[in-house]
């Protein structure tokens, strides 16, 4: 029978995507999910897609989650591919998390502090029991409210700093780096490292942060403060000369207080690990703060021994869009390479078999030729 070469990639792709669309919709007898439903009821999923997609827009986040059937790395990828096409018209001023409209604020280092401990809408202290009443649906009773006005909530790091107990970050007028415009280069400064972590994969950072707690580069962390809420974004158009508000976003910030560092001239101070994430994502903010601090090992004169302290290792592997692309590219055809490996292996095996069939003492050291002159090495400058 004559062989006809495989063809039809084009039609196969179209058909596969039509099938995907049908499967995404699921049973057509059930109502279609709306984006407001996703935004309101799967907020944490939307938050994660926005954080790792580096694009703050809950409506687009909801669309991405829907389009990706809830696959959050795929959703983040959709957002990234969209954001890369957007024009940049301004840089924002640094957001002021001290002025945050706080929904949640806790400190693990002071029992009470100005503004108090505010648990907010947390899963902490819930008993993880499947709620069959939720499965049945029905109205949710309103949460109790208070009329007490919210006090100002200074950041714990500022409280410590006022006493000189916390290191001070020198303010910088330098324009921060941007990984989405300039490729990573080393040594990578902290601005770039923090950007990479903020975009990085939650699971990867969680694992790395966890590893520092188990002895791979630990730094005795305390959760100085975790706060979540709305902050204002401002830009300062040069033609105006003053800042204007362009919107709000919800962020989670974590300030880890770590063991001290000092010198002959500077008295010992606590050092800081910092985490900041779009949306409500405490797990990621905390993990980020641990890894940020671990990556400061060299700067703080500590031994660099653990994976989380290896800046190159962390930064090159934290991006899940890069990681998923490259891991999954293994499913693309590789038959050309595999074919050359097959021929190579066949050749090597034939060589061994030939040697075995040879009557003389086979497979001793002298059996392989020793290359004498490195022709390439000789031509090197």
């Amino acid at each position, binding site marked *: 029978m004559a062989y006809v070469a495989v063809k039809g*990639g084009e039609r196969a792709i179209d058909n596969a995507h039509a099938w995907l669309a049908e499967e995404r919709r699921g049973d057509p007898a059930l109502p279609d999910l709306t984006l407001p439903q996703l935004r309101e009821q799967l907020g944490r999923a939307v938050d994660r897609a926005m954080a790792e997609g580096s694009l703050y827009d809950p409506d687009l986040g909801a669309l991405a989650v829907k389009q990706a059937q809830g696959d959050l790395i795929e959703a983040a990828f959709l957002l990234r591919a969209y954001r890369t096409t957007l024009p940049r018209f301004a840089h924002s001023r640094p957001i002021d998390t001290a002025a945050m409209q706080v929904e949640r604020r806790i400190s693990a280092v002071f029992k009470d502090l100005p503004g108090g401990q505010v648990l907010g809408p947390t899963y902490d202290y819930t008993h993880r029991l499947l709620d069959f009443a939720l499965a049945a649906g029905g109205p949710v009773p309103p949460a109790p409210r208070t009329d007490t006005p919210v006090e100002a909530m200074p950041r714990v790091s500022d409280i410590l700093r006022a006493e000189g107990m916390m290191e001070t970050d020198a303010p910088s007028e330098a324009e921060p780096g941007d990984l989405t415009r300039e490729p990573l280069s080393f040594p990578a400064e902290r601005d770039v490292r923090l950007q990479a972590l903020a975009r990085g994969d939650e699971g990867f950072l969680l694992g790395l942060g966890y590893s520092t707690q188990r002895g791979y580069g630990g730094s005795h962390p305390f959760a100085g403060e975790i706060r979540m809420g709305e902050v204002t974004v401002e830009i300062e158009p040069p033609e105006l000369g003053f800042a204007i508000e362009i919107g709000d976003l919800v962020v989670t910030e974590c300030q880890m207080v770590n063991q001290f560092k000092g010198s002959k001239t500077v008295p010992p101070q606590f050092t800081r690990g910092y985490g900041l994430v779009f949306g409500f994502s405490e797990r990621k903010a905390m993990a980020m703060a641990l890894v940020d601090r671990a990556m400061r090992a060299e700067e703080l004169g500590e031994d660099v021994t653990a994976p989380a302290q290896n800046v*190159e290792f962390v930064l090159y592997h934290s991006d899940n869009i890069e990681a998923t692309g490259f891991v999954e590219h293994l499913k693309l055809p590789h*038959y050309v390479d595999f074919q050359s490996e097959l021929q190579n292996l066949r050749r090597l095996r034939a060589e061994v078999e030939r040697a075995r069939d040879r009557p003389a003492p086979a497979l001793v050291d002298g059996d392989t030729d020793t*290359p004498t002159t490195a022709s390439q090495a000789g031509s090197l400058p």
Partner: protein
Amino acid sequence: MMGYNFAYLDEQTKRMIRRALLKAVAIPGHQVPFGSREMPLPYGWGTGGIQVTASVLGQQDVLKVIDQGADDTTNAVSIRRFFARTAGVRTTTHTAAATVIQTRHRIPETKLRDDQIIVYQVPQPEPLFRLEPSRVETRRMHGLADYGLMHVKLYEDIARYGQISISYDYPVMVNGRYLMSPSPIPSFDNPKMDRMPALQLFGAGREKRIYAIPPWTEVRSLDFEDHPFRPINAPHPCGLCGATDSYLDEVVTDDHGGRLFVCSDTDHCAERRAAGHVGTDGVKEAAE
């Protein structure tokens, strides 16, 4: 395409990439970092090649896209459609008719001309990465042309197997200065790179590197005087067109050892069959 610039990328980005390309051409084989953009296709699937192609493509260009030598593999189809959609350029499967050829893992069998550009998709631009994972270190090695590590690896191969065991992505020395990954092409294709009349451009999107080989540049596959470079290919003619000088894919035809060897370059094979060449498992073109 509505809402997008010609060939997807905005002109500023293309200019940035073209600057990187110029630098790459000026320093053959040297990896130039560039601000690789996030593309609507996944990293590892050709984003570097796509960005390079998008930056050099003009409206008059004719584009050919191959993966594993074939025009009809799914990822090649997907990338060709991407450009047909975003740039509206003419596409072709004929090597000779193309002005720009984007490829993954192969160099076409048809000799390329000096009015053509070949763009390679590169998964891992660093030829030393298996020997030294830190890019800070490998950058230093390239700076000093310190390639002893690679020669030792080749020597160890010979000591262990009696021959160099690299069959694809076989390292090359460009213009006598930079060690370079030819991308995962089979070593069979390496000799085609040497003094090629066409401009060779390499894009690695995820690793954010671009490099190039200008036309007519010397490209040598690393070897030793007493262990010269030997490209690998299956010792068969093509089953469809009878070619004996093309790189072959192996097709499994049944579950008891049946194999068919066919040209990996589908355009080359089709042209030969159209010209009347028939292999042992092929049929006369007219009968098809």
